[in-house]
């Protein structure tokens, strides 16, 4: 039974990493109505910036964490203002392709600036484990879970209880009406992109100590975050976070208890995606999403 609980905790930790990125995806989808394929690479790029701060400039970890978040915020705002907004008249396909272009630019750019070799990345949490009720939990896992939960709570409170959050929700739902009411819609959407960039930076910095840092390390995380967002319902923040934890735990248990997969962990991703496709056949809006009446 101990092994079971340990796997649950490990699954929650990786679920937390997916959850922060999935939350970023949902934020963008609600604000702009598109999928940001570059979300993972934005997190990757932020993590490289953090790496430079840590190892080149010798900034202590939490200082680095804060500075990286600020830089990421402005990076996200810049992406929105420079790329997404000018293209928004061109339709969704143009925007999606633009985010794909951004994906390859950031991916190649990181290799260009920092070289594509694999690096290790510091973890802010101690290496040893603690015992809770006979179950050994590493500080690494516990810290990752707590950080992800903190992110979710902060984002929730921001949108629920602050004036800016309310204006942002209004801008996303009824841009025209909001503009008439004097809300600066463009600014609000830009802030949304900035927030999403911050979330993906957190996801990257939590994932890097486990996965090691190279320009492609967020690709798998992004795929799982997509899966989590779709599983929970692409428009539902709660759903995406729940979907991410379900996915993380599910994969962790799958890898432990299904012998066929235990020896071949590379099968976890295809199996997870196949299950997801099946779920979508029966619940196209995801587990927590509301079915929207489509025109066709």
């Amino acid at each position, binding site marked *: 039974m101990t092994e079971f609980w340990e796997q649950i905790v490990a699954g929650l930790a990786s679920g937390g990493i997916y959850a922060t990125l999935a939350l970023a995806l949902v934020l963008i989808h609600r604000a702009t109505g598109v999928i940001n394929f570059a979300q993972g690479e934005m997190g990757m790029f932020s993590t490289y910036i953090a790496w430079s701060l840590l190892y080149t400039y010798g900034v202590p970890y939490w200082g680095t964490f804060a500075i990286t978040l600020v830089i990421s915020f402005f990076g996200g705002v810049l992406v929105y203002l420079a790329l997404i907004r000018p293209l928004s008249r061109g339709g969704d396909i143009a925007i999606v392709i633009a985010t794909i*272009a951004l*994906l*390859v*630019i950031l991916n*190649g750019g990181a*290799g*260009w600036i920092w070289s594509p070799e694999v690096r290790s990345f510091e973890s802010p949490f101690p290496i040893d484990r603690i015992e809770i009720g006979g179950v050994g939990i590493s500080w690494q896992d516990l810290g990752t879970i707590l950080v992800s939960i903190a992110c979710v709570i902060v984002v929730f409170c921001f949108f629920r209880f602050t004036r800016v959050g309310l204006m942002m929700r209004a801008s996303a739902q009824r841009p025209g009406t909001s503009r008439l009411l004097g809300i600066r819609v463009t600014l609000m959407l830009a802030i949304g992109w900035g927030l999403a960039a911050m979330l993906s930076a957190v996801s990257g910095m939590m994932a890097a100590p486990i996965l090691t840092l190279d320009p492609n390390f967020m690709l798998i995380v992004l795929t799982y975050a997509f899966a989590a967002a779709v599983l929970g319902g692409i428009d539902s923040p709660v759903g995406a976070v729940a979907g991410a934890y379900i996915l993380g735990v599910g994969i962790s248990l799958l890898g432990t208890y299904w012998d066929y997969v235990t020896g071949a962990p590379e*099968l976890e991703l295809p199996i997870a*995606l196949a299950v997801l496709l099946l779920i*979508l056949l029966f619940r196209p809006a995801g587990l927590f999403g509301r079915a929207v009446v489509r025109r066709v």
Partner: protein
Amino acid sequence: MTAGVRITPSLVARLVVLAGAIVFFALAPLFMSNFRQSELVLVGIYFIAIIGLNIVTGYSGQISLGHGAFMGIGAYTTAILVTKYDVGQYWTIPLAGLIAGIVGFLFGFPALRLTGVYLALATFGLAVAFISLAQSTRFEGYTGGGGGLALGVPTTPYYLTWSIALGMFVAAWLLLRGRLGRRLRAVRDAPVAAVSSGINLALVKAIAFGLAALYAGVAGSLLVIRTGFVNYLTFPVLLSILLLTGAALGGFGSLGGVLFGALFIQYAPGLSATLPHVPKESAPSVMYGVILLIVLFLMPGGAAELVRRLLGLLKRLTGPRYSRRTGERVVS
């Protein structure tokens, strides 16, 4: 298709360009080293793959990010048939196309029930999952696992590739200007009207997706025959993005631009590698991304639109001129 082909000046012009291209590609090997020919084979392979991608993205308005995975399915079909079942490698090309096409059609059905963004996501997932499946130790008996499969020496199937490319180009042209093309465009531009007119939306989209996969499968099969080797690294996610770049650059919804897109994705990395101070691995992807953005911002219709605009400009410059003030014809 029974209506026949109407002969218009623009059709004649297109046929002349097509004939010119055929003559060029038929004679080119006579003046080329084997290395250059081998490069052109790759251009032909990209050409075939991008035609397929154009059917699904340009004509049915869906973004596919998994085109590389369908190339991979075609490639592995050929590699497995040749190494495990001793089938002659050229005979495997139609089979590879067929199997990739069937997989594409079957994948398309559930995926296309989802709308736009979801298809892009599903195909992206497919591209990532394909790599995991191809290197999995569980299927090592068939796929060779991470080590891949070797067919033998690399070859240069120049005329074969370009004959297939020509055949598939003409086939796509005929298909898309006929009933299927009309239905696809209807589904893309006005789904509600299309459904009201009795078009089975899911079926038409799945057929387009299957066709696209068939083209990709043939391209993948040719690729493995050319290289003589295949493993999971042959079809990275970047390949799918690359093909999308080629299609966007050529112009979505235009078959003529495809050749330009194919030439570009073959020769652009070589050009970018000549830039100073740029590491070889990362330069091409940065450049593809930047070019993709330039296309999106400056000429959303790709090369095809550029040519159209230039022709329009030419017509205005050489044709009769009209006074802006009186609207009368100006005699100079």
